[in-house]
């Protein structure tokens, strides 16, 4: 098990000793219940963000940023996406259990170099779903919130309401199979217990048993919400193609009108591209401004990959993903 360290201490150490050029972590955001990414440049950063700063001012800024680092149940963003930005630089990144699978995915696909990475693992019990909280409250109160021990308090239509922290986390967190990072150089907390979960969630069982008509209606409903902003794709650490099929314009492959068939085509194609690659990190779901429940379809996809190929994406960087490999023992003749 990796060594347990203090977040700020390790960040300071890595940055000042020049062991990394960039440190990617979290800081409190300007809105309640939320954390924003915090990108810190070290003394030895070859492409420093503030080249024109005096060395003293630069050190000050680094120290201030290190002091602002946090990790708690507000830290929902999957920071692995930023690794694409700092590809050739020595980078440290804070990852939760789910996020760590995205790192493994990128290693498997040779998008990042392990030698350039320092992985700071953050064992995680789940992160807060602000929109779910607003729904539980029955008002848009997620913008005004207070924490009171194991509860959140909200001002809602003139009165205070309370909700248990445990009820406020994402569905994906409740179904999480990797609370503890699967890959890390350091851990910034003690491992958290991993509950035993059924192979298929109740929701997935129900969906699989449902009639095609029911599934179609549900799919149509979700897709009708989509405004094709592509935020889901842009947030997905596994969606890093230089030219996405959705952006192909010579010729154009998918339309972008408000006819639901355009959204369906986009999402179905994207799902196909994520078979055996989606780790279920939930970045797409959290980033969708329209609350499209992509989770349902990602889960469906992952459960099939597991069933057909016995493969879970982002668990072991030494194993090749099923759709990226070829075996003489394949049961299908056409592929041998």
């Amino acid at each position, binding site marked *: 098990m990796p060594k347990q360290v203090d977040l700020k201490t390790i960040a300071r150490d890595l940055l000042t000793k020049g062991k990394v050029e960039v440190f990617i972590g979290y800081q409190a*955001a*300007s809105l309640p219940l939320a954390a924003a990414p915090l990108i810190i440049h070290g003394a030895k950063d070859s492409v420093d*963000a503030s080249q024109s700063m005096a060395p003293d001012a630069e050190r000050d800024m680094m120290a201030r940023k290190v002091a602002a680092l946090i990790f708690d149940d507000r830290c929902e963003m999957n920071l692995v996406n930023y690794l694409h930005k700092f590809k050739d630089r020595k980078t440290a990144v804070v990852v939760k259990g789910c996020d760590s699978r995205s790192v493994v995915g990128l290693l498997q696909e040779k998008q990042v170099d392990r030698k350039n990475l320092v992985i700071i693992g953050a064992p995680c019990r789940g992160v807060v779903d602000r929109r779910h909280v607003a729904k539980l409250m029955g008002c848009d109160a997620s913008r005004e919130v207070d924490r009171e021990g194991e509860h959140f308090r909200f001002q809602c239509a*003139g009165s205070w309401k309370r909700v248990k922290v445990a009820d406020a986390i994402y569905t994906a967190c409740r179904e999480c199979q990797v609370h503890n990072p699967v890959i890390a150089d350091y851990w910034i907390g003690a491992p958290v217990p991993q509950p035993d979960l059924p192979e298929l969630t109740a929701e997935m069982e129900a969906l699989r048993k449902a009639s095609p008509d029911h599934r179609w209606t549900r799919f149509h409903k979700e897709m009708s919400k989509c*405004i094709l*902003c592509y*935020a889901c794709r*842009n947030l997905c650490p596994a969606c890093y193609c230089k030219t996405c099929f959705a*952006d192909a314009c010579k010729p154009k492959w998918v339309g*972008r009108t408000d006819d639901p068939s355009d959204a369906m085509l986009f999402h179905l194609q994207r799902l196909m591209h994520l078979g055996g690659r989606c780790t279920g990190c939930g970045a797409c779901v959290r980033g969708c401004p329209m609350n499209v429940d992509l989770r349902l379809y990602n889960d469906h996809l992952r459960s099939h990959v597991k069933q057909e190929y016995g493969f879970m994406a982002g668990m072991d960087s030494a194993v090749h993903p099923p759709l990226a490999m070829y075996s003489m023992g394949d049961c299908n003749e056409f592929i041998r």
Partner: protein
Amino acid sequence: MMTREIRIIPLSEMPAFVGALMQGHKVLAPTRNDDGLCVFAWLAAPEQADWTCGIPQVPPKQAFLPRTEILFTYHREKGRETITPPPAPEPQIALGLHPCDVQAVKVLDAVFSAEPSPDQPYLARRAATTLIGRGFTEQDPLVFCRELGIDPMDNRDCDAFLVPLAGGQAEHTTSRMALEILTDKGVALRLAYDGFPKAGVEDLAAIAEARKQSAARGVPLLDMAVIQRRLENIFNSDLWNRIHEPCVGCGACAFLCPTCHCFDIQEEVMGQDGARVRVWDTCQFDLFTRHASGHNPRLSQKERSRQRIMHKFSYGVGKFHIPFCVGCGRCIAVCPAHNDVRQILKEISDFK
């Protein structure tokens, strides 16, 4: 603006009023979708209009700039093309706009009526629209329209305006709306409001009091002139390296911004028939500025993030004398990286 007349509509009667508006108009209003999320959407039934919504996450710009707008359709046969213009827009009402969303419509007006090529589809929709604003009393920590000089009780540029009034036993909850009729388009809604009583002396006092209270909540204004001048000088500054870093270029901020109006033109073709459509797009995407040659003048997120801020706070102010941001806070609410445009403005103001 001269108020033509004021009617009082009890909250319980709002569906009747909205229902009457729906006679002969498409009505866009704040609604709550199945997830409980407030969005501006076209009403299918009068009860769908929701008066408890704050700033709906989806802005009202779709009334003027639909997500998909057919510019014309065509049919090709034997090398000949017939082009058919789309039908003229139906009369429509944009209902319940916060004064900042009304200001956003002014931004769109400025852009789409600019010479030398005023945008005909936009102007046709705009002309077919009656704007009914709505005053806001609640405070939302993400909304900073006051800092941009917009008073959430201001009825300017509206055809009619709803002032929420408290009263009866529940002192702080809205019990009725005062409907101010402000223009000829407003007067044209007479059939919908004629059944409601005219405002009495007490109502007039309550409206004046609501406006007074709102005005008393003044906040220090952001100095847009200073920000604009600063921006003109820092185009090549390192500051942008810092500002763009957390941005993943997802584009949600621009899609849901009430003033962002960038679009793409696409062809929807099936066999011999086709349509030229315009769809929402944003400067946050690589493809937006990629030339046919493959060259892209905005190569990385740095240039794209800079464009968003420049367009809103420098180019817009320079060319149209109006910032392309109205302080609605939507971009702050939806940004997955929690990029806060207020912090960016502060960094720019503080930058030496």
